[in-house]
Each structure stands twice: as C-alpha cells, then as structure tokens.
C-alpha cells in the first residue's frame, strides 16, 4: 500500500519538507531534454544578457513548477490528488542557485466528499529570497 498522509493527521500551520536542487546548466539541460525547452535565454549567457539578465542564462519557470509538484507528491503520497497549483515567477533562477521549495498548510476544509488542504508555496534561493510564490490545493485521503 502506498505511503500517504491522511486529512485527519494534518493541521493548519504544518510545513512540508522542501524539495532541494542546485540548478546548474546540466540540470537545465536535463529539463530541456524532456520538455523540449531549448530556448536561448535558458542555454546561452549572451542570450540571457540580451533578455535583461546581467548574469546570463537563467532557469525555466516550468522546472521550478515541477519542483513544487515533487514536494507536494513526496509529502502527500500516491493516494493524494493534486487538484490545483499556482505559481508566480517574481525573481530569476540564476545559474547554480540552490533552490528549496517551501510549503505550509493555510487552510483545511471539506467540500462534498473531498478532504482538501490549501498550501502556500514558494521556491527559495540560497539567500533566503522567495523567487516563486504560489499555492496548491490537494485532496487527501480520509480515515472517515
């Protein structure tokens, strides 16, 4: 049986374990190789600078979105349903950033047969700056 978190066992204020990755060019390349995201601003420093990022090439927003999903799935387990994920890209993911996702339960509610939690999320860099605030709604299994 799959590992999972039950609705009854979680509380508002609970924090999710972060998903952590250092994003270097190899890491971006690996993502480009599954999402076909071979876009010059993500690959080439000159193109990144042309795109107004002085430090050069910068990371894909979709990759940070994937890290959020990984955190959610790792925490909630395979019986949970990820119903909604929102993310805003407020700061650039620079090369070699050490990114850590964060998640905190801000609401817990029942809607019909669904046992739901709303989670505030972010992707924080090595300086502690939130780069991509967002939210998620997850339907958890219930013991009831």
């Amino acid at each position: 049986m799959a590992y999972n978190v039950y609705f009854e066992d979680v509380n508002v204020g609970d924090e999710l374990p972060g998903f952590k990755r250092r994003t270097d060019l190899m890491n971006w390349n690996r993502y480009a190789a599954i999402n076909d995201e071979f876009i010059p601003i993500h690959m080439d420093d000159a193109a990144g600078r042309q795109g107004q990022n002085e430090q050069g090439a910068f990371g894909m927003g979709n990759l940070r979105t994937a890290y959020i999903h990984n955190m959610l799935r790792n925490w909630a387990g395979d019986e949970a349903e990820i119903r909604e994920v929102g993310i805003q890209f407020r700061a650039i993911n620079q090369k070699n950033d050490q990114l850590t996702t964060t998640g905190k339960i801000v609401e817990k509610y029942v809607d019909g047969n669904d046992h739901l939690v709303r989670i505030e999320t972010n992707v924080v860099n090595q300086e502690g700056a939130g780069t991509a605030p967002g939210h998620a709604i997850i339907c958890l299994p219930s013991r009831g």
Partner: protein
Amino acid sequence: MTTEQPETLVTQEMIDTRDKWSEPRKSWPVSASDIRRWAQGVYWPEVPPRLYWDEEYAKNTKWGGIIAPEEFNPFAFPLEGAYGQEAALAEVQGRPAPSTGTMGSGPGSNAMNGGQTIRYHAPIRPGDVISTTSALVDWNERQTRLGLTMFVTNETRWTNQNGELVCVKTQVSIRY
C-alpha cells in the same frame, strides 16, 4: 532602457484574437517511457516515485496504474513547429533566416513566463492522446523596472481521447 517607449504594446492581432479558441491540436500517444523519462528528469538524481514508472506497484494504488506527474507535458517535441526550428532549418538548408515577426527587437519583443495556475482533473496515463486548445483571454499593461510591461493571460484546456477534461491552465506571459 534607452529605447523610445511606445504608448502601448497591445497589437491589433491581440484585439482580433481575444477569446477565440484555437483549433484543437493532438499530442502523440503518451507512452509509459515518456512518463518515466519525464519523472527521471524532474527528480534527478533521485529515483522518482514508483507511481510514475512501476505498473505492478501503481495498479494497487487508487489510480489503478501508472499516471504521469501532474505537470507532464505531452506536447513537447513536435515534429514541426518547435521553438527555433524554422530558423535552424533555414540555416542548414542555406535559406535566408525567416522573419521573426513581432519577436524582433525593441519594446514588446522580450517575453518571460509570469506564472500560471493549473487546475487538474483526469490524470494522464500511458496510451492517452491529449488535445489542446487555447485562447488569449486578457491583458493589462503598466510601467515596471523593465519599462512599459504587458501582462498577457492565456488559457489552455487539455482533454483526453475519452473527452475527459485533463487540466485548465491559466498562464501569464510578461512582455517588455
């Protein structure tokens, strides 16, 4: 920015196409290997959850079989129309570079992914063929540190071969 600022970045094409849904486009059939490889890419260097690659395991979960990570993109790697493909093709065939249209240089030609909200419904499974349709639904403009900046909202809807809704994505792109 030293470039002269236009009064608006909104184009006639945007006004004309607002709320007009694109002709649905189909993905290649999703294979179990596509899903496994996606999961490997986003979890690297960890082995991804079994739900994404182990059918024996996955059939005993509530899903009854392998599903794709929610953010899986079945539209990656089209045979034609990939980003940069036309320009690269022109180069190998010795033709002049194609016009870059509105994505040339100057104000409005730079684009960034501003963010998105995705509502998930049916999961994507091996064998699925996903259809996508999208529309430009809204925009607004304001001055930012990048100069005049436009926030453009597009909505995309995916359905599977059974007509079930897979997801609705509301995406904001930033142009400056």
